[in-house]
């Protein structure tokens, strides 16, 4: 049994070598269609990361009325922290705000020297909980905060958030559609490439069956070959993708590459696609 397995595996690699041309062509075809898939996956990966980052930056700014006392500030702090939607609440005093502002202005600080009093209010920077980082929850929380005594204004970048939500929604939509097309065409192209190699060896399959080969004996080499081709094609496409990524960084400096974990998952998926593709292409030639 083991010896048979070894023979069939050897057979697979012998066949790959024997049909170098066909093997090379199908690996190239697979690599290119997988590259298409990989580019798409990387784009999605980056999109998700950007959305995640943008969400992480979402904050609610609560500005206080002038002349709120120290105890008033503490009461407000407690009230805001107690809300379901809030995670961390940071108090930024008007003095600190001015200092920050001064730092941001840099050389132009003399502008501030003209001021007689500090025009900036006390503020809370509120970080919403992750599950509440969406438009409705934030707007709802902001409304509640505005009701509190001593709060003069609440800002959370309403326009930005509205636009952002719409863009993310559209991006997800486009991404899903493109993803379906890309995945379907990759599977289609790969299964056709595999089918070509199977058709090329239809006669061998027929002969093997005539001399009494079981289906497993016939399919095993094909599955091993498919897996091998899938693996190689995955590696080649990842290599090409690295090139594409490096080139794109000129224009998109923030573009990230797959993590090692994701690259592994991708490779194993390609191996699976290769072997399953081989198997399904073969099935029609295995009538018995």
């Amino acid at each position, binding site marked *: *049994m083991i*010896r*048979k397995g070894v*023979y069939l595996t050897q057979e697979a690699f012998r066949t790959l070598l*024997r*049909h170098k041309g066909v093997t090379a062509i199908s690996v190239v075809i697979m690599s290119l269609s997988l590259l298409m898939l990989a580019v798409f996956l990387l784009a999605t990966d980056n999109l998700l990361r950007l959305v995640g980052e943008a969400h992480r930056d979402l904050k609610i700014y609560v500005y206080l009325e002038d002349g709120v006392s120290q105890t008033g500030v503490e009461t407000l702090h407690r009230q805001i922290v107690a809300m379901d939607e809030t995670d961390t609440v940071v108090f930024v005093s008007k003095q600190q705000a001015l200092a920050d502002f001064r730092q941001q202005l840099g050389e132009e600080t003399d502008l501030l020297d003209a001021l007689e009093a500090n025009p900036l209010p006390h503020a809370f920077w509120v970080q919403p909980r992750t599950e509440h980082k969406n438009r409705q929850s934030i707007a709802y929380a902001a409304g509640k905060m505005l009701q509190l005594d001593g709060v003069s204004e609440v800002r959370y970048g309403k326009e930005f958030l509205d636009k952002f939500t719409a863009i993310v929604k559209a991006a997800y939509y486009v991404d899903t559609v493109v993803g379906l097309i890309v995945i379907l065409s990759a599977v289609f192209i790969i299964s056709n490439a595999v089918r070509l190699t199977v058709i090329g060896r239809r*006669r*061998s399959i*027929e*002969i*093997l*069956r*005539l*001399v*009494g*080969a*079981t*289906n497993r*004996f016939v399919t095993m080499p094909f599955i091993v070959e498919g897996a091998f081709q899938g693996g190689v094609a995955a590696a080649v496409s990842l290599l090409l993708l690295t090139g594409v990524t490096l080139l794109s960084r000129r224009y998109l400096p923030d573009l990230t590459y797959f993590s090692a974990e994701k690259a592994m998952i991708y490779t194993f998926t390609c191996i699976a696609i290769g072997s399953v593709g081989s198997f399904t292409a073969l099935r029609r030639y295995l009538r*018995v």
Partner: protein
Amino acid sequence: MGGDNSAATTDMNDNSREDRTVIGIYHLSKRYGDRVALDDVSLTVSNGEFVFLVGPSGAGKSTLMRMVYMDEMPSEGQVVVGEFVSTRMKRRQVPFLRRRLGVIFQDFKLLEDRDVFENVAIAMRVTGTSGYDLKRRVTQVLNQVGLYHKRKDLPRSLSGGEQQRVAIARALANNPSIILADEPTGNLDPEVTEEILRLLFRINSAGTAVLMATHDHAMVRNFGQRILHLREGKLFEDKRTGLTGDLSDRLDTLQRERVRMQRIQTDLERSRRVSTAATTDDLPAAAEVPLPGLPEAGDGEELT
């Protein structure tokens, strides 16, 4: 059946063992849609028999063969090969049936990308045989068909006759109790046909039954021990000719006759060439030397 064959090869020739049925076909019908390919055919082939299956093309010879190695299943009736019964077996078992049969075709069906040795070995590899056993048996059957010296050649570098001998070696590899030959000489010229027939006779005389489909009437007339005549899907005639003994002897007689005829023909040709060469002075020197047995110039051109 396969296991006891090593012993059987020596004493299968005597009649006492001939009553063992290796193929039983009972009321077999095969229809493709409306077309009837075989219609209620019944016959049996016993151990060690040499049976010719004749009939015009389309009579159902190949269909019948395919039913025996169960590439197709009967519409009605039953095929029994050894312990395999078509109506009582699963498709999964078909490979195991095929390991008990040797099948030979008109187009040889060799693996083009493997050498001669591997082409024979594959029949044993599918059964899980490997190593020394495999090598010994392949060597044995290749010697039997006289092609051991070409074991490393690829099929395309062999002549048609040699390719068919490789196919025969492959068919013999698993010690089958019967060899099915579907027009095995259809693609071969008469001389090579004879060579293949001689080989099949020898195999048969060692105890293996042979069922051979052909439309070559001369062959059947000269060698037929038992002739099954198919016509329009029906078994028209099952004739035992009474022709017995070693068929190779008959082949020898026929061949001596043929060689004599050929020699006469060659002599005639040579004398003709000598006379033409003598009259045409402007021919190149090489062409003037009469070479007996060489194809005529016209034939050579057609070939290239």
